[in-house]
């Protein structure tokens, strides 16, 4: 099955490709696939030379801890991109999950397990709501999730009359909240396995592995991508495309809720502005992921690499005393370069 003479598909058959293409084209193709990894290696090298404290296990973990939430939410966005949609509400879901988690513990006085269950259930409900808008009412993806984003951004302010939630919160009716944050809950964001591997990083790795296998190695993932690639053809092949699309939104909202839980556990209170940059960052990670391995499509592995890439860059620059206000500009520059590289290099190959 691999004895082909001039393969066209570059993904499955790299060895045969090597025989068919001239060296220059091979190099260019290799560059396109490996460009993100090459740049990542270059960054690590440069930062290590300039700042010896960069290349330590502790710093590596701190980078991963910083990107864990963005990576988790980004994988959810990636799945919605795979079905041909786009979930703009993930940032708002994460932010309102932070508020919901704090509210559950401080106002409702719930324990860690009940809080986590409640917030995840909240994520699922929001996902179902998005699915209802998009699949049943046929509202275009971007508009539906944009509306949901508005709705949640406002909704999270209502129970506390716009205040952040911390122990001793004064409720709108004048009484004082009696609960406190469960230490077990805080452990989700603050504890480390064997004193080295932070729990959020572990969660990120688990989510990455599960979603990578689900999207790239299962028939279910094949159907998700098939739906996003050609919904008509997939429906005519007998697949339940509506359910597949609905699933993608439920999954992405649930992952956003998980991201919110981690943020809440790390900061230990319900901060009104806590989810501000999560949407942009997770979408950027998904899009940078297009460039990874030159796939030019949403992919979970790429999203994780994309998030880590941005994390490494920001961490290194911060160590070199780059001012914090340049961070968004740097993320934007990475995103633009990644997309330009993905689509610009060697476009005529196809």
């Amino acid at each position, binding site marked *: 099955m691999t004895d082909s003479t001039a393969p*066209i598909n570059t993904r499955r058959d790299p060895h045969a490709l090597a025989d068919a293409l001239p060296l220059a084209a091979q190099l260019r193709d290799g560059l396109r696939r490996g460009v993100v990894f090459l740049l990542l290696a270059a960054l690590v090298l440069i930062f290590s030379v300039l700042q010896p404290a960069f290349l330590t296990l502790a710093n590596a973990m701190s980078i991963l801890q910083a990107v864990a939430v963005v990576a988790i939410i980004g994988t959810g966005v990636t799945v919605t991109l795979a079905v041909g949609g786009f979930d703009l509400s993930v940032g708002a879901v994460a932010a309102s999950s932070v508020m919901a988690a704090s509210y559950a513990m401080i106002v409702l006085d719930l324990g860690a397990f009940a809080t986590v269950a409640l917030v995840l259930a909240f994520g699922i409900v929001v996902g179902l709501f998005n699915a209802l808008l998009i699949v049943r009412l046929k509202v275009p993806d971007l508009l539906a999730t944009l509306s949901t984003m508005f709705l949640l951004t406002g909704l999270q302010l209502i129970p506390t009359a716009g205040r952040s939630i911390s122990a001793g919160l004064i409720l709108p009716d004048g009484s004082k909240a009696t609960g406190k944050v469960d230490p077990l809950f805080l452990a989700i964001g603050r504890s480390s396995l064997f004193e080295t591997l932070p729990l959020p990083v572990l969660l990120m790795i688990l989510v990455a592995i599960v979603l990578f296998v689900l999207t790239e190695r299962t028939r279910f993932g094949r159907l998700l991508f098939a739906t996003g690639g050609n919904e008509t053809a997939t429906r*005519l*092949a007998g697949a339940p495309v509506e359910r597949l699309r609905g699933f993608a939104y439920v999954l992405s909202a649930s992952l956003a809720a998980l991201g919110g839980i981690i943020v809440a556990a790390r900061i230990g209170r319900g901060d009104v502005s806590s989810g501000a940059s999560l949407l942009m960052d997770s979408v950027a990670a998904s899009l940078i992921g297009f460039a990874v391995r030159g796939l030019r499509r949403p992919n979970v592995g790429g999203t994780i690499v994309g998030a880590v890439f941005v994390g490494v860059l920001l961490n290194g620059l911060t160590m070199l005393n780059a001012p914090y206000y340049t961070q968004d500009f740097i993320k934007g520059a990475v995103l633009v370069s990644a997309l330009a590289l993905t689509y610009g290099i060697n476009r005529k190959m196809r």
Partner: protein
Amino acid sequence: MLLSIEGLSRAFGSTQALDAASLSINRGEVVALMGANGAGKSTLVKILAGLIEADAGSIYFDGRPYHAKSPAEAAARGIVTVHQSTDVIGIPGMTVADALLLDQFADGRQPFFLSHRSLRRRAAAILSDVGFDLPLDRDFSELGTADRQLVAIARALSNQAKLLILDEPTASLSAREAERFYQMVRGLKARGIAVLYISHRTADLQALADRVVVLRGGRVVAQQARPIDLVKAIETMIGRPLSLVHPQRRTVPGRPVLHLSGVRIFNDTPAFDLTLREGEVVALTGVLGAGKSRLLSLLFGLGRFASGRAVLDGAAYAPSGPAEAIARGVVLAGEDRHRASFIPAGWPGESIASTISLPYLRRWHPHGILRERREQAAATDAIARLGIKATGPAASVWSLSGGNQQKVVLARWDAEPSRLLMLDEPFQGVDVGARQDIIAALRSRTDRATLLATSDPEEALEVADRVIVIDRHRLLEQTPPDRRTNSTLIGARHEELA
């Protein structure tokens, strides 16, 4: 001599698409370009249209060297291409008048400020100049394919086109629309405009061509002036004698597979009966909009019959959707394979293997984890059995020619046993050679019934044991098998209905 091409070559990677092809066209001449898929027709057209450049060779047009780098440049010199796909001509939501003037908006020939009256006047002038009659104030999206083509041609002529390239213009026209189209082309010819005509339809060539040029393997292998010996031209084109390719008549109708009784497609359309048997190939033919596709999609579970009863293998059959239809063994290869069957290029699932496996993911990968070997085996088998020209199971369907793409679609529905295979316009953009392979494959199966829809009556006769004419959502006539060879009868009947 209007156009003269000498030794034109162009390679794509290791494939030599055009290999020193030479060709000339006079003013007022209609030249038909024939060739199997991959013979180099589209490469030649693309070079003339300014979409790609030649590696070697020279082109002279209207007495000067011709070297267009863009379609706009080609149009400025007087070569205009009307492509098969007509939705790129105008914009839904804009009027026909707007569509006629679209390129004038773009190149600044229209003033910056526009008035409805002046637009309409200019558009009407373009139409009266070429003698077409089109509704100027209608929305472009309401026009049928035939009228859209007229818009494209009128626009080309208003730009002083000297050579018109028509790429399969009649592929989706009914017989009557096609006749009107022929008359239009004859009118162009009378005005001294040269036409380079690409078509898989033999009727077109007979009606129009002054000269036939046959391409094979990127070379011009034969030329014929009128009178044209089509059989010989087709034989040169496919590189084998035609006597081998006509299907043998069979008399083996087996057990009934599907029986429809008193079925109505819509509430206000007449009821009809239909029985399909094992081992028989039935062709459904009729003009566009007669209800062919509608009948097939209802049988596939995309909607319900207004009334009536369907029985499949002795049990009531009323599928709730494609999933149930497929589970019961009723499958459909939809019209327009790009839209109905393929995953886009660069996306997971574009390979031949995964195109074939898409409906069978649950069956072939029972534990959820993809076992590529199962689908690769199916694809390897299909490539060998149907003679698909591809580099392997992992090759993208987008790297294949139209005929080979259609073979992949057929391979998908051949990969698991089925009771009724339905194909909607399966020979669109499929060359004669591949068409014969597909017909042979369809006719070789005795374990299922085959129902195919085509708007070309000749094609129907070529493939089927039985031809059924459908008109305004009712079945009109079931042609007995002994009239298979009598194409004029069917043709006449078809005309009359249209």
